């Protein structure tokens, strides 16, 4: 984004930040800290949470009851972040997340949203023809699995807790985390052994 900014944009941003600092809305240090936290966040955090939930029933229960607390338990600061909700896939239900109104995304545990998540076509189509969109990722649900599209419209941010795939028996959490991709955490893909 920095490369696309014009001198006018940079000057406008500089004055806007200066005004916020003068008014006491935010400090330069807080802005720097937030940028650093956002840049550190990546889908690896969400993947580690899922892998732990697959191997630790108490952590799984915590994650489903309070996603923010589960993220904090993995060392992620959730201070000032929207509450995190965790959507539990079962043999009967698969979840996928979209934000039709903008691009709400659980940045604290997944990092920056990918471009396709913010695209108008994904946002329009995922509520209208979700199975067709999933098929374009090569994601076809087994017979009898219902699909729940979660439209992230307000104060929560949502991630999917997918089902642990067959063929991963005996794997440790690190090996399990490696198969939990960003796309699986959004629900457009399924983890594969």
């Amino acid at each position, binding site marked *: 984004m920095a490369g696309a900014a014009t001198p006018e944009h940079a000057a406008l941003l500089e004055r806007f930040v200066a005004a916020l600092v003068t008014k006491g809305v935010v400090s330069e240090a807080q802005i720097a800290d937030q940028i650093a936290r956002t840049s550190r966040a990546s889908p690896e955090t969400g993947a580690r949470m899922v892998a732990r939930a697959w191997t630790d029933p108490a952590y799984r229960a915590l994650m489903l009851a309070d996603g923010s607390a589960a993220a904090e338990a993995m060392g992620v600061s959730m201070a000032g972040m929207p509450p995190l909700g965790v959507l539990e896939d079962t043999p009967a239900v698969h979840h996928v997340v979209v934000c039709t109104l903008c691009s709400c995304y659980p940045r604290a545990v997944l990092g920056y949203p990918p471009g396709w998540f913010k695209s108008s076509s994904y946002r329009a189509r995922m509520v209208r023809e979700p199975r067709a969109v999933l098929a374009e990722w090569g994601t076809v649900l087994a017979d009898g699995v219902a*699909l729940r599209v979660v439209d992230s419209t307000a104060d929560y941010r949502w991630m999917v807790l997918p089902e642990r795939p067959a063929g991963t028996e005996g794997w440790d959490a690190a090996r399990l985390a490696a198969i939990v991709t960003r796309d699986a955490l959004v629900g457009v893909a399924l983890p594969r052994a």
Partner: protein
Amino acid sequence: MSDFAAGQRVRVKADFPETRGPCHIRTPHYLRGRTGVVERALGRFPNPEDLAFARPAPRRALYHVRFDQPALWQEGAVGDAVVVELFEHWLEPTGTAGQLEPAGTAGRLETI
């Protein structure tokens, strides 16, 4: 303002404040006037419709509400659903004004 319970059927108000002036609405157009089922209460949050204009923003109850997917679009797989965060002031209980439910949605929603 009503408190809604999990499992309760609710209708999203068929209101379009966009036609009356500047506003910031977190209720998608495709749900206006539609009937769904409350999944659970998510807590109370400052009303974004006020926050967006720097007005005092009273906290409003937010609900996860489930809608039958095929009934929304007249296409899609039976049993699929869309689940959406909606604020209490956009929801009204159904069945109290003698209004008909959309065809084909009653019963099936309960089985999801």
